[in-house]
């Protein structure tokens, strides 16, 4: 039960008769008592005439998924099963991150009818957003007092990673096609897989002339090449402790997801098979054997539910995880963070096991504020800060050098740059035939 602002105003209105009629304290007190009794009686009457907030049937119509940053409509159907018309105010109790705001929907549902209340959700966080209950406030015909009940109406919506990096995809695909030798520019592919023979045109590399075919045909023939296809790409995202840290107000894990989505989209376009693992001490998510459009949809679906775990990543079991995915030679992309030498020792000691069989790229998000801090040296505090930043950069440089010594490749970049940088490195590796 609750009461409304109208009731408060009505009580306050009692001042008027008290001032006008109450000449002596006795009459004024009598007027006061009378007014309070009247108002109370009106309130009770109003409450008894209000429709029951329990006699309501609820049904939800929710989309299953939404990309982060986009809006969806959540539909809630209310059926009045009671004997009176309902004058309601409705609150759909979504979790705050679902972006439903502080919603209060006024609604009138005549007896025996059904109404639709639509609410726009703009989630602000990846993952599963839930709603458990709907609170209904049913006021009487006078709008003085109201009955309130909280009804069970569960629902959930899965918020997928935004994949903002997809804006980089068209340009990278264009470059892939150039590699492929399929564009009108006739840029010869530099891969190592034999594609076809064609007539020599000026500008072709003379080293690619096929003399045997030239002799047979009587015309200069060149071999064309195309990059290898059907290679394996295994993306391992570190979902451990360090992935929770925020760089540019974005957790490292989210940047890792952006980078892996761009890489997966690109690699599947290039005809490679992509597998995805999110791992810290156990597998938090795995996408295996998916192709084309299904790959990306399964990846975002898996990623939506992965949150950073506040535990140290167990790097020693990562080679085993990769071996479970494929025993062939593959491109293994480890997306983690490269910090101090001490924190990266487990990664470094594991790397030789991977580099023995696979091509390994270690990708890491770097903090652009660190680089900026080295240049700001206005006063004493800033100089110490610059020194600490230099120290951090040196640590990263040392660990990167150690990783390169182990035979792996390193890609680092700010959150906005890492996904395209990783894609570029993939194209570079592909064009160099190192896959």
């Amino acid at each position, binding site marked *: 039960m*609750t*009461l409304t602002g109208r009731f*408060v105003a009505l*009580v*306050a209105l009692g001042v008027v008769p*008290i*001032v006008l009629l*109450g000449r*002596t*304290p006795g*009459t*004024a007190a009598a007027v006061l008592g009378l007014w309070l009794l009247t108002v109370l009686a009106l309130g009770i009457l109003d409450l008894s005439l209000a429709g029951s907030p*329990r006699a309501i*049937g609820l049904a939800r119509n929710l989309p299953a998924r939404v990309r*982060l*940053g986009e809006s969806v409509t959540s539909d809630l159907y209310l*059926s009045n*099963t009671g004997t009176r018309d309902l004058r309601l105010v409705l*609150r759909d109790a979504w*979790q*705050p991150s679902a972006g439903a*705001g*502080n919603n209060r*929907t*006024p*609604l009138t549902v005549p007896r025996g009818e*059904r*109404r*639709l*209340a*639509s609410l726009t*959700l*703009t989630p*602000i966080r990846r993952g599963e957003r839930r709603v458990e*209950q*709907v*609170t209904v*406030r049913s006021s009487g015909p006078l709008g003085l007092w109201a009955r*309130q*009940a*909280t*009804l*069970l109406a569960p629902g959930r919506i899965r918020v997928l990673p935004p994949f*903002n990096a997809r*804006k980089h995809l068209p340009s990278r695909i264009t470059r892939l096609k150039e590699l492929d030798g399929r564009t009108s520019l006739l840029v010869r592919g530099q891969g190592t897989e034999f594609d076809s023979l064609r007539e020599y045109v000026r500008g072709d590399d003379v080293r690619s002339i096929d003399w045997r075919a030239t002799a047979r045909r009587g015309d200069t023939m060149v071999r064309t090449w195309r990059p290898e296809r059907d290679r394996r790409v295994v993306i391992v995202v570190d979902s451990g402790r360090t992935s*929770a*840290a925020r760089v540019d107000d974005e957790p490292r894990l989210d940047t890792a997801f952006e980078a892996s989505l761009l890489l997966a989209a690109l690699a599947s376009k290039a005809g490679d098979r992509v597998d995805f693992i999110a791992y810290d001490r156990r597998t938090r998510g795995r996408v295996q054997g998916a192709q084309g459009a299904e790959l990306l949809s399964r990846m975002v679906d898996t990623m939506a539910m992965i*949150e950073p775990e*506040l535990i140290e990543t167990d790097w020693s079991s990562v080679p085993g995880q990769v071996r479970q995915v494929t025993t062939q030679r593959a491109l293994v992309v480890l997306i983690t963070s490269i910090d101090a030498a001490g924190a990266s020792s487990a990664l470094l000691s594991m790397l030789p096991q991977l580099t023995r069989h696979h091509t390994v790229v270690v990708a890491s998000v770097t903090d652009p504020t660190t680089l900026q*801090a080295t240049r700001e*040296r206005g006063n*004493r*505090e800033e*100089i*110490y*800060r610059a*020194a*600490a930043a230099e120290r*951090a950069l*040196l640590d990263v440089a040392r660990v990167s050098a150690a990783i390169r010594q182990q035979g792996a490749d390193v890609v680092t970049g700010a959150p906005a740059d890492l996904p395209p940088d990783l894609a570029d490195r993939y194209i570079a590796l592909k064009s160099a035939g190192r896959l």
Partner: protein
Amino acid sequence: MTPAPRGATVQAAAPATVTPVSAAGPSTENAIALTPTLRATGRRVRFWVLAGAGALLVAIVATLLAGGTSAGKPPLAADSAAQPGGRALVEVLQHEGVSVTVADTLAEARTAAGRAENPTVFFFDEGGLLTADRLTAMAGLAPRTVVAGPDFLLLQTLAPEVGFGGVADKKAAPAGCSVPAAVKAGTLPPGERTLTFPAGSAGLTGCFTSATGAFSVVERVASGRTLTLVADDSLFSNDRIALAGNAALALNLLGAGDEVVWYLPTIADVERTGPPSLGELTPGWVTPTLVILVFVTLAAMIWRGRRFGPLVAENLPVTVRASETMEGRARLYARSGARLRALDALRVGAVQRLAGQVGLSRLANLDDVIQAVARVTDRPSGEVRSVLVDRVPATDAELVALSDRLQELERATSRAITPPPPGRMDS
């Protein structure tokens, strides 16, 4: 699809739109209500409500039983059963057929005395509330007036010859006078307050003389009215009435007539002086208006304070900025004044950048870098070395200066390396 910026703030969402749905679909089940019904709530809290009410009841009954009648009443009050009360004496008087009328104001006392044929006024003014005029009026109410514990103003007004006599000695004093009540009482308990008056004063009789010549009871007879001053008021109280001859004295003094007016002045006897108070000036509707404002406030509190359903819980991720380790290390350097260590970090970074600029490898010998930089910038190698290696900062000011020189050296090198921008040949 335009991607929204990450970390967009929650916008206060507009209320949902409402659409009528034409057909009332198949009869739907009612949603399960999580709010307990009034009856369920009542059942749950019934024990506590009953327990609370019971405790309240017990407290009220106990208070009433434990002398709620006498609590807070003045000494010698006729209906007070407490130790300083006067109920014992009143009860006995009534039992003996003397009616006792309680008066709180002079007007009441006057009415009561006027109604009776042969009244006795018992007067005890602990707070000294009556003025001289009223005291005189009080003394004229009845043929017999008994005053317990007279104060200075009363003596001055009604018996100017009488003064205070100090405390009686420790020996029980005999009556030693012709006042019948005193003679019947025999002795009074020792150690009470006394009165005194000059010998040979007309109309005054002193009883219960102490060794110092002071009296516990003084009777003054003037123009047919008897005024009995009993120096010690505790003589009439419940706890002392039974001592020695107290009871006999009190009963004989008050029981001489058929009617006793038991007059203890109250605050209502005090004459009002000065301008009218604020309460008298305010109109009658002010207090009820304040009361209704209290109710309005209560209603508004319920209106605004009633929560629209329970809160919704959500697990939120921790927010850890990646630069926090860097900031922490910077603060450690600053607090411990690790100037050389901080400068070394800056120098190593600068040397590596310089090596890259002058075309040496990252792992190049430091001497080679210094030589190359000195050559490129056209500076003596000793100066370059002092900036890059040798100088040890003794103060923070020197640290700042050295850091500036490091930056300046880097800038100079980069200027020397970068080819000048293409300009016009003839300039």
